[in-house]
């Protein structure tokens, strides 16, 4: 059913693209070079590719954010961008290789799942440039970007701790992995900083593509009396939102804190208290820009935290969060940036 909807959307999209192509030379996102025009001179010859993890490009999470960032770059700078979806773990290597063979100036690996594949391919192709999100690869031609998710989570923890009425707060993680643990630990620390009496429960699903598990986990937490749930679970988080929407419709006052991007734009600010922004797009744009400018060095690992605006609280939070709480958040942010507070990561 879902696939059918997806498909018809695709057809519609494809059809509209064809129509657009009639009057406009800026046809498909995957348009081959040449049709781009000479808008931005030399940068038009730059090609940047990205390989998704098995979540695919429509994961409503970092794969999608990354691709949108690249598309924005294409529009602004007139570079050529392309993505390849990985159907399985085994696809990572040939997909990365495809970009290398086609002479791409930079190839992104999105997500820690690509770590070992990207390590291998980077070693085999020392002359090509790579970048990876959420994992550190130690090679001279790879730029690694990590995020201090714990810092951003700390801030939404402050909001949750202040806003809870039942004094019970929940967390749903997509997998019990070190990356996701960072979300939980930071979140918990933020709650404790402002509301030491609040009860905190964390639940882990068995994957990032299990909306049903997400829904069940959220139901358990809400039934236990929690009124705010922070989800760091990718597609599984959709289930958390759906459970909250159901309850909201029945008059229950429950909230979800979104993750990675501003999820109130998708699920509405009726249930989305705020979102912990992970600015993958900033990372993609920053590193890609280095390649366009010719300043890409590689071999370094950058960790984007609050001070780089790599993580943070969504701008739309003011709709549901009163100004005094946001002011408190701002002051905590300053303390973290200044180093006065160190947010735990494990």
């Amino acid at each position: 059913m879902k696939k059918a909807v997806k498909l018809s959307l695709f057809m519609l999209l494809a059809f509209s693209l064809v129509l657009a192509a009639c009057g406009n030379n800026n046809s498909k996102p995957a348009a081959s070079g040449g049709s781009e025009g000479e808008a931005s001179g030399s940068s038009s010859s730059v090609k940047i590719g990205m390989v998704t993890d098995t979540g695919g490009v429509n994961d409503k999470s970092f794969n999608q954010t990354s691709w949108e960032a690249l598309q924005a770059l294409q529009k602004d700078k007139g570079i050529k961008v392309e993505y390849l979806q990985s159907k399985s773990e085994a696809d990572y290597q040939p997909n990365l290789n495809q970009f290398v063979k086609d002479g791409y100036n930079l190839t992104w690996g999105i997500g820690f799942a690509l770590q070992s594949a990207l390590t291998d391919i980077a070693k085999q192709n020392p002359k090509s440039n790579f970048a990876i999100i959420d994992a550190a690869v130690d090679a001279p031609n790879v730029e690694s970007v990590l995020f201090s998710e714990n810092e951003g989570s700390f801030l939404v923890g402050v909001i949750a701790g202040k806003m809870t009425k039942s004094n019970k707060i929940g967390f749903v993680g997509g997998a019990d992995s070190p990356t996701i643990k960072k979300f939980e630990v930071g979140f918990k620390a933020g709650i404790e900083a402002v509301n030491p009496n609040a009860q905190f429960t964390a639940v882990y699903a068995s994957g990032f593509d299990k909306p049903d598990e997400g829904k069940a986990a959220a139901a358990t937490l809400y039934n236990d009396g929690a009124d705010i749930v922070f989800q760091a679970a990718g597609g599984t988080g959709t289930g958390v939102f759906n459970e909250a929407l159901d309850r909201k419709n029945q008059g229950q006052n429950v909230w979800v804190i979104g993750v990675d991007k501003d999820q109130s734009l998708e699920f509405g600010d009726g249930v989305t208290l705020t979102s912990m922004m992970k600015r993958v797009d900033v990372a993609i744009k920053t590193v890609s820009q280095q390649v366009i400018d010719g300043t890409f060095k590689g071999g370094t690992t950058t960790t984007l935290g609050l001070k780089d605006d790599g993580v943070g609280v969504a701008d739309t939070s003011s709709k549901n969060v009163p100004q005094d709480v946001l002011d408190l958040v701002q002051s905590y942010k300053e303390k973290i940036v200044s180093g006065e507070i160190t947010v735990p990561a494990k």
Partner: protein
Amino acid sequence: MNKFLKWFASDSFIVSLAAIVMGLLLGAIVMLIGGYNPIDAYGALLTRVFGDWYGFGEALREMTPLVLTGLAVAFAFRAGMFNIGAEGQVIMGMTGASLIGIKLTGLPWIIHAPLAIIVGALFGGLWAALAGYIKAKRGVNEVITTIMLNWTALFLCNYIVRTFLLLEGNQRSVDIQPSASISIGWLSEMMGNARVHWGIPLAICAAIFFYYFLWKTKQGFELRAVGSNPEAARYAGINVNKNIVKAMFISGVFAGLAGAFETLGVFHYQSVYSSLPGYGFNGIAVALLGMTHPFGVLAGAGLFGALTYGSAGMSFDAGVPPEIIQIVIGSIIFFIAAQGIVRFILKPVYKRKKEKVL
């Protein structure tokens, strides 16, 4: 040789071929509606698979687990059972191979790698035999048990990897010892670092073994008899229960090999899977494509693997979205599974042909 030619003229071959062509045509129509050029797209598919040595090597790598899981499903099917559990047996095979490949040290390659393969195969075989045993002893349908054992295998193996083999801070095991690797280094280098491994020729050997075992040996005779008519087999003095367990074991060995080869030849580590990776389910499709005949499975895996691997070329070079590629693959399988439809479409052609003969 003559027999070989005859096979090409046989009904099932022509129907399969027609099914593939119809599937490709339907895919082309879908692409046309979507505004993509099907000729470019299929061209890109072929280029990705046959365009260079790297692509060809990687396509072979893609086909190998499909051959083995296809054989697993087909073998159980020939013995009258539906093994939905190749999935879990693959994961067990991975785990068996990982345990040996990681934990044993100081062994020479010639011992270590084969040992890891054998243990992986045994893990898969015993896991499947468990379902066979439950069927033989308690009469529980193997479809139910194998589906449930898929999940049991997934969580059990994730536990094993997390507890004993974990690479700290990652969702995967540490790398296997170099002595357990079955990658073919020199060939891989020749093929632009494509991950070719000894599992590829061994998978073909497995298909040949399947054929000889089932049709040329005494034990195969028993399995086939039990598969086509267990009651008559029992009347003829064949121990039906023993054969059920045996058939499931061998089926599981094929699937276990698929897992072992993936770990030892492709990844050199084992991931913690958040969900079933899908090897076994693709194996069902391949077995269906190959009409549960080992050589058909080889062909089916070749086709399925080439389509899956080559599809990335379709999206890369021709801009076709992966969803439409899934429709193309799906329609080919649909036409092969729904042979009645193909035969119906072919009917006028056949009629004319027959009349000519008369």
